[in-house]
């Protein structure tokens, strides 16, 4: 029996366009659509990754909303945005809005993730491998 066959692809020079970019006037620059949809549409949202770690800096003030209070209680120890979204049963985008409010009010601190570099950081990879080996 022969398996079905695939053909490999190569990195695009530009970010790949969205699946259906045929909107008038914007078809020439489709990657912008992607950027707008995926990042801060309103320009006011903090750049929060799924794995940005959030830590509370203060107890909930009396003025805090129940949602803000819930986040601050959960973040007594560091917790990722993804975990907050899961525990509070809020969509990721709603979670980032909520956290942005707390960041603006200086009630939480955000610890940015380590992202992929063009040349991988070998000491980082070794640390991860060590950690995995202990599993």
């Amino acid at each position, binding site marked *: 029996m022969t398996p079905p*066959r*695939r053909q490999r692809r190569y990195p695009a020079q530009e970010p*790949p366009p969205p699946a259906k970019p045929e909107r008038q006037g914007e078809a020439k620059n489709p990657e912008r659509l992607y950027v707008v*949809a995926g990042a801060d549409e309103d320009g006011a949202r903090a750049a929060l990754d*799924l794995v940005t770690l959030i830590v509370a800096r203060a107890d909930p003030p009396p003025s805090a909303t129940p949602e803000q209070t*819930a986040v601050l209680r959960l973040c007594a120890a560091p917790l990722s945005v993804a975990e907050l979204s899961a525990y509070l049963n809020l969509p990721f985008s709603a979670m980032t809005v909520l956290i942005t409010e707390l960041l603006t009010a200086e009630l939480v601190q955000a610890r940015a993730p380590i992202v992929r570099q063009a040349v991988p950081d070998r000491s980082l990879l070794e640390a991860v491998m060590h*950690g995995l080996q202990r599993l």
Partner: protein
Amino acid sequence: MDFNGSDTLPGPRTEDHLPHTAQAAVKIVIVGGFGVGKTTMVGSVSEIRPLTTEETMTQAGIGVDDNYGSESKTATTVAMDFGRISITDQLVLYLFGTPGQERFWFLWNGLFEGALGAVVLVDTRRLEVSFDVMGRLEERGVPFVVAINSFPDAPRYPVSELRKALDLSEEIPMIECDVRRRASSRDVLMTLMRSLPSLALARSRA
């Protein structure tokens, strides 16, 4: 949902709290078709019970889905399971199992852009389901390894034949695994970590 009942506030168990020294996180994405074992793999290595983050595709779907201008916008909920592994007191690794369809990926900021790499989980009974995913990762320059989840009733092809069928460049590792087993899933992740330098090198030469 009721956020007021603080006694019943959902949250991590005490033993699942990260230490205050946790400074940064890294992530790996596990991608593959429906039912290929992504969530099983996440669960077999995660130190916490796998969690789910959801996103609703409404406004953000405009221009991507073809529902632009339609009166009744349909909201699609997309879920992603994830788990966590503490690496050191400072460093945490998160694993995300994500649907193969690229149109969902943009819902989560930087899901692939920031990831150290990806595992493409493949079921040899439905090999072609993974073709598009691999192509998308190649186009985006996301380093990945291919893991064949060995289902008992799946056709077994020789590795060389599978490599040819998947048209994998030589530096991309392909390994068989049983994602139900922690050691096996861990080996897949170790293989990814080990091959990241050579995958990056091959990409810089491309």
